[in-house]
């Protein structure tokens, strides 16, 4: 299969779920999809195309919380990033962990650092933050405020 066949196949098959499509370069494509069709598109990439799941990244932008799932189709030397934009007040996205175990830990990390709720995740415990960290405080959010009164933030000089 060529690059065009793969990409046109995704675009026609999931036409109603794809909100935006950005062909950045010969090696890189961003596809913005609505949260409801994430599992279907990722399942198509992961299952039928045999793409490799690399990593997911979470971003807090000015208007949305975004999750990007990066897949690569190695036969084509192509990196496909699925972008999901979420509402800041109720960030909720279906989890890919039932589909592939490799996504489980990165979803846990995004959950604790950005507060995104991954619906259907089998084990959404904390991954990295310490036990004393308060519930509902997400350090990588734009509106994060210092919560620890014991923190020292000057160099003492």
């Amino acid at each position, binding site marked *: 299969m060529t690059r065009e066949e793969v990409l046109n196949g995704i675009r026609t098959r999931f036409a109603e779920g794809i909100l935006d499509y950005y062909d950045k370069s010969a090696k890189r494509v961003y596809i913005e999809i609505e949260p409801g069709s994430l599992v279907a598109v990722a399942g198509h990439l992961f299952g039928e195309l045999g793409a490799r799941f690399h990593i997911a990244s979470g971003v807090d932008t000015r208007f949305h919380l975004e999750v990007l799932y990066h897949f690569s189709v190695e036969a084509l030397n192509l990196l496909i990033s699925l972008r999901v934009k979420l509402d800041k007040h109720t960030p909720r996205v279906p989890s890919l962990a039932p589909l592939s175990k490799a996504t489980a830990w990165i979803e846990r990390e995004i959950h604790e650092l950005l507060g995104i709720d991954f619906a259907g995740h089998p084990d959404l415990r904390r991954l990295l*933050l310490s036990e004393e*960290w308060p519930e509902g405080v997400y350090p990588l959010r734009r509106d994060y405020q210092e919560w620890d009164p014991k*923190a020292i933030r000057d160099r003492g000089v």
Partner: protein
Amino acid sequence: MSVTMRALLKSPWVFHLSTGSCNNCDIEVLDCLTPRFDIERFGMRLAASIRHADVLLVTGSCNRKSMVRVKRIFEEQVPKPCVVVAIGECSMSRGMFIHSYNCPRPLDSIIPVNVYIPGCPPKPEAIIGGVVKLIKKVKASL
């Protein structure tokens, strides 16, 4: 001077404790031990276990999780007398991580620090110089 202190200063066994560093200071500590700088000729040896250590070489900006462990190591596990050397900018003031959500406090507010070796990373010569200064300081205080 007691026998313990004499033995400690004659041949201080160092333990290398990384509290979440970028590994650059750890590489420089390693350089001190390899033949080019070879701190064993000053009697310093790398201790394999914290329970054999006389000197703690601490690198890295303490984060919320390692803070608890550093405190426990210093208070409960390392035999006394023990002196602490903070190596690198991170363990002194946390360097560029000073505003990080995960690095709330500098090392010297968690455990007492005897000698600071600045640098990012400090050169092996600086580390050796720091430990020599430490020995002089401890000798003078006795």
